């Protein structure tokens, strides 16, 4: 009901716009994202008012993007998984495991490329295990990925002996992803952008992406249409794991380390961003742009807090209120009552 109503309302909005404007608005500006963009704009206004000299500086904007890129990459994978009707709680832990594995002395001796490959392989491998357990072992995604979360953290601690592993100077190429800038932006922001763009294309322009909606929205229909739902589900978790691997490279670049403590509670942030972005937790509907906008809202909130030097307790209270306000603003009723 509510969805249909919302659809009707969106339709009305779209009709109210002159044709050209509608075209120009394009995907990002789709009615469903308008609320998010508004919320973001509102936060920007708050930033401009409270810290005019700091907020809108290019250095600060770069800082926001750099902060967003690690979780951002993870969020892209998470969007696939959630649209496909699953959930991945293991993202933060898998990222930590990949970062640790890629920075062991043994791996580091092969140079930065091998380190990067190692991170991606470990991430994808962990994702694949998730996928196999869920698709073929028939485990509930929540439980399978929770188990992976726990086990991956434990393994990361074992491998690293609970120590933080520094990237050796000869592998500084990895760190340069964070320090080298092109056109004012650190390289890792470009990687983030690349992952988003590729993710968007795969989701919206390939058969794989479109089938993801079917697998999440109506798995039985997908099966009857001849889609191998299990294999597809497995691949979705592999994608998420791949993204964790990429994120591991980024966090290594930013922190110059691999550590079993990296990515703590990233799963909550990523899921929250995806859902604020309008993806249904039950699957079948969603968008990557929305997820990224949702994530940016979180990042900007944090940035504003930092700039304004709020104390933690007040920050937490304010954050809770802002989340509620942002979502109310964005979509009274868009997603309906149920998760």
């Amino acid at each position, binding site marked *: 009901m509510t969805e249909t109503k919302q659809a009707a309302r969106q339709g009305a909005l779209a009709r109210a716009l002159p044709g050209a404007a509608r075209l120009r608005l394009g995907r990002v500006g789709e009615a469903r994202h308008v609320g998010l963009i508004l919320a973001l704009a509102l936060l920007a206004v708050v930033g401009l008012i409270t810290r005019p000299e*700091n907020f809108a*500086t290019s*250095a*600060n904007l770069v*800082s*926001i993007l*750099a*902060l967003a890129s*690690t*979780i951002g990459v993870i969020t892209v994978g998470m969007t696939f998984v959630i649209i496909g009707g699953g959930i991945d709680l293991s993202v933060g832990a898998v990222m930590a495991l990949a970062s640790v594995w890629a920075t062991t002395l043994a791996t580091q001796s092969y140079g930065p490329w091998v380190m990067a490959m190692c991170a991606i392989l470990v991430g994808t491998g962990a994702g694949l295990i998730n996928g196999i357990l869920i698709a073929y072992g028939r485990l509930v995604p929540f439980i399978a990925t929770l188990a992976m979360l726990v086990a991956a953290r434990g393994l990361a*601690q074992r491998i690293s002996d*609970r*120590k*933080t592993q*520094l990237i050796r100077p000869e592998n500084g190429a990895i*760190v340069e992803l*964070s320090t080298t800038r092109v056109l004012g932006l650190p390289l890792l922001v470009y990687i983030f952008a690349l992952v988003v763009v590729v993710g968007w294309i795969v989701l919206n322009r390939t058969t794989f992406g479109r089938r993801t909606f079917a697998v999440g929205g109506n798995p039985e229909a997908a099966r009857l249409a001849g889609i191998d739902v299990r294999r597809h589900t497995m691949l979705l978790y592999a994608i998420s794991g791949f993204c964790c691997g990429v994120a591991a490279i980024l*966090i290594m670049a*930013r*922190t*110059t*380390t691999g*550590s*079993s*403590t*990296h990515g*703590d*509670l990233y799963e909550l942030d990523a899921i929250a961003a995806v859902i604020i972005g309008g993806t249904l937790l039950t699957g079948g509907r969603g968008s990557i742009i929305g997820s990224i906008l949702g994530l940016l809202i979180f990042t900007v909130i*944090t*940035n504003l*807090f*930092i*700039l304004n*030097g*709020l*104390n*933690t307790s007040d*920050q937490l209270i304010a954050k809770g209120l802002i989340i509620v306000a942002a979502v109310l603003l964005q979509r009274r009723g868009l997603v309906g009552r149920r998760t």
Partner: protein
Amino acid sequence: TSNEPPAAQQSAAPSPAAGGGTDNDRPGREVKIGFSAPAADHGWIAAIAKNAEEAAKQYSDVTFVPVEPTNDINQQISAVESLIQQKVDVLVLLPNDGEQLNQVARRAMDAGIPVVNLDRIFPDKLSYRTWIGGDNYGMGVAAGHYIGRKLKEKGVTDPVILEIQGIATLPLTQERSKGFEDALRAYGYRVTARQDAQFTVESGTEVATNLLQAHKKIDAIWNHDDDQGVGVLAAIKEAGRNEFFMVGGAGSANAMREIQSGTSVLECTVTYSPTMAGSAVKLARLIAQGKGMSDLVEHQVPQSITLASETITKDNVEQYLPLGFES
């Protein structure tokens, strides 16, 4: 003791003992001190933040700029970046992890902002101007000596000694355990079982409840942190056990009151005082104003200052009680 800590109160208020009455406390050049620490979800860390802020408040020439405390490295890096952008005069940093924040601290130093490294140390000396912190290894040694000496006196031969750590992935935890082990070895003892908690009351209760079941007769327990110690004591009380004694860590007011009561299994605690944050802010101010420490001969603040870990027992607890932080 000769090592009378600088503050007369729980906070690091300036006091005569800490170079008060010298020129150093007089207003000087205006300085902006940036401050970043982990999220204050723990009594000790909360005391750190509070001590820093109160120390800053003592000086009219100090603008204190704390940033969002966080337990996420990625965010702490961003926080420090924003302080660099705001061009503070000096930074006081208690990193979540010294190694992971090393790069950004180095960037601050390179940008000409001196960094006062608080407690968890940066591996690279170019990343800080001065380090001030507690002696984690020394803390373990102090606890080890207390337990070792006491059990030796009783003539126990094969004692059951338990260790309840804080967060296991922190280097400071590992140092404490190392010191503890080394000190015990001197007495021919070793740790029977070791479990880690999360520095919270609740995790203390949970781990202790299970540990008490795992060992039917215990001789001594060292608990790294008095905050989680409240929970450990609750679990001990619940289990109705008292055949052993316990040593705490950090030096909270609660722990000291327990020791003072004389009826508790908690007989002793070894300090790791959050007053260091107040000192760090003071040092930061001195550095920014180009002053030295007036009790010292040198014109500049030293490169590194390590607090001593002291052993508090029923005998000297009166003296330390005012310094205990409320956990």
